[in-house]
């Protein structure tokens, strides 16, 4: 030990005193929405699109007079794709006076941070699709896309009637998101009388899918259900092309996303997915307008996460204006069982309903990647 203890102690004092200087004032003529999302780390492809969609919506809401006639500000909070950080940040956003939380996208984070929003009666629009999120009896959490327990069953008719599959495989990422979807899919296939002949679990951030694809190839199913996050989906598609996997690859939402296509290149061609909402569904006027202004602003194509963030902000505006004041409890009451028609609320894009648990339903699409971009090949009614 050396003789410098007092100096060490001073250092320590400084290092704990610095954060005390944090803290911000807030203006009364604005309302704040807290954007808590995966802006760095494994979730960044989803989180940054979510943010940009939300940003676009905030600009439009402000142009349309704001929320309750007040200007909207949206401070951003980066969770680093770490659930514990996300919890701290939801707390921070609430401390700083936000009226609603926009985020998070990753289910693992949402499962943690939604407890904080609930304790503070703050409405929270999430981009997460794990079934468990709306099953916890939290009245303040609302989805911006249907949960996996709704999205995956919408695929069953496609496997059964369109592909006429007798035996299928499932390749999934072993996290909350992947496991939720995989469990629903296996149950659905059982109900439909289709055999699941291969069940290939992979890790989050896995880079080598050679073994997984080889395993699927040797089981030779009629079709494969691929349920992974963006980067993993892209790597899987590249490996599938390398090994010339012959059967159709069908996913839910992520598999045909812009980010996946960008990463996988031409390996993504032919991939099919059921998507809750897609920027390629340009026959819907709201979506066409959204896709255009997103591309004009950010110089890239929007993903479904961008649409989700956009819808989250607009839903906050519509519902807060409906309630007529900032009141979390009243917001929750209004949200449950609410249906917003696209005809009356154009920025909600499609007729959208929330049930008494915050689950969402709206019409959805089947898309397939053709020549490097996803093309709508069918519509699935709201379920």
């Amino acid at each position, binding site marked *: *030990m*050396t*003789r*410098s*203890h*007092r*100096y*060490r*102690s*001073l*250092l*320590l*004092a400084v*290092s*704990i*005193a*610095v*954060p*005390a200087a*944090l*803290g911000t004032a807030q203006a009364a003529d604005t309302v704040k929405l807290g954007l808590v999302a995966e*802006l*760095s780390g494994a979730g960044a492809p989803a989180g940054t699109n979510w943010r940009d969609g939300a940003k676009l919506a905030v600009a439009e809401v402000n142009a349309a007079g704001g929320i309750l006639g007040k200007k909207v500000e949206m401070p*951003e909070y*980066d969770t*680093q794709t*770490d*659930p*514990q950080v996300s*919890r*701290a*940040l939801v*707390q*921070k956003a*609430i*401390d*700083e006076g936000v009226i609603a939380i926009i985020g998070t996208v990753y289910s*693992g984070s949402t*499962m*943690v941070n939604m*407890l904080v929003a609930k304790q503070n009666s703050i409405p929270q629009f999430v981009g997460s699709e*794990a079934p*468990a999120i709306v099953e*916890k009896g939290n009245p303040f959490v609302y989805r911006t896309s249907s949960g996996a327990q709704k999205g995956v069953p919408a695929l069953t008719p496609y496997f059964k009637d369109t592909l006429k599959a007798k035996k299928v495989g499932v390749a999934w990422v*072993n*996290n*909350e998101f992947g*496991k939720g979807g995989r469990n629903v899919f296996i149950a659905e296939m059982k109900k439909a009388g289709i055999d699941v002949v291969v069940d290939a679990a992979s890790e*989050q951030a896995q880079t080598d899918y050679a073994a997984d694809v080889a395993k699927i190839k040797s089981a030779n199913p009629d079709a494969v259900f691929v349920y992974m996050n963006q980067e993993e989906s892209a790597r899987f598609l590249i490996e599938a092309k390398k090994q010339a996997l012959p059967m159709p690859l069908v996913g839910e939402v992520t598999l045909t996303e812009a980010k996946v296509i960008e990463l996988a290149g031409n390996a993504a061609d032919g991939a099919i997915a059921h998507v809750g909402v897609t920027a390629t569904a340009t026959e819907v006027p709201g979506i066409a307008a959204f896709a255009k202004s997103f591309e004009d602003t950010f110089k890239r194509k929007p993903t479904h996460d961008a649409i989700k963030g956009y819808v989250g902000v607009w839903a906050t505006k519509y519902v807060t204006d409906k309630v007529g004041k900032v009141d979390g409890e009243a917001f929750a009451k209004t949200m449950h069982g609410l249906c917003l028609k696209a005809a009356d609320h154009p920025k909600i894009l499609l007729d959208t309903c929330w049930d008494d648990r915050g689950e969402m339903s709206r019409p959805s699409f089947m898309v397939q990647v053709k020549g490097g971009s996803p093309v709508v090949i069918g519509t699935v009614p709201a379920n």
Partner: protein
Amino acid sequence: MRGLSVRDVWRSVAIALLLVAAILLPIGQKNYIIYVLTSWLIFTIAAMGLNLTLGYAGQISLAQASFMAIGAYVTALLTLAGWHWLAALPPALIISFVVGLILGYPALRVKGHFLAFVTLAFNTLVFLVLRNEDWLTGGTYGLSGMPRPDFGLFSTDKHLPFYYFTLGITVIAALALWGIVRSPWGRAFKALRENPVRAESLGVDTRRVTLLAFAIGSVYGGLAGALITPLVQFIEPGSFGLAHSLRILLMVVVGGAGYFFGPFIGAAVVILLPEVLRFTEGYYLIIYSALVIVMLVFVPSGLIGVWGRLKAKVWPKQQVRTDMAEGAGLQ
């Protein structure tokens, strides 16, 4: 009885002032800052444990997060089953200690990088068990809704009381560690770090002492885990992955391995610095990483060594044996 030197008085006053600062700091702060300060204290405890293993006994471990996981899951399962947190704590610590011993016994046959790899594998193993054994651990969905301890008149449900509760535990843990490093064991740990062959020739049972340092370090990990459970009230395997073990290692190294107060500073840098830098928005992680690199390049013995070095340069007084003054390096 030996009289107190000026230095000892200074030290006691500084520690007392710091404690007062730690008590006053969160008052009037918003929940977010209190939450971050609480996680700083908890990670300090985990880093104290690793500091004992690495800084004092010279054994590099990449499994500290897995001991946090063990402490966290044992506490979570027991408190969810209706046990009081205080009742759940001893099993959590005992299991961490026993697992530390069981892992340490074969692992400590190897040293340096090889030990790092063995502990790394163990960390991955714990992660996989937590994720795959859904029936017990809830798998990837984790466990949620763990109650915070309630002591009759003092309920820790709110953030501020929970901070004080954590502070109390941290002080107790620090005092216990202070006792350990000053005990014959502590001396043996240091002897082992400096020169294992000589230590053995002086009659130190190196195998037993290393194992003990490892197991006690694991108990501190378990204690930190037992506190994370009521703080976050949600645990999942991803929170205890290898990256978190590396973060705890970073805390020990940045703070100053082998220095008693090193973990406090190291945890402050790793937990608080990114939060302080958040005002730079998109750049904060870049700045943070750059700062860490600069620190490690210029002060490899940790931040706590900075003042001692500066002082020795400006005001040289008494020659301290450099091998004892510096913390253990990572070789």
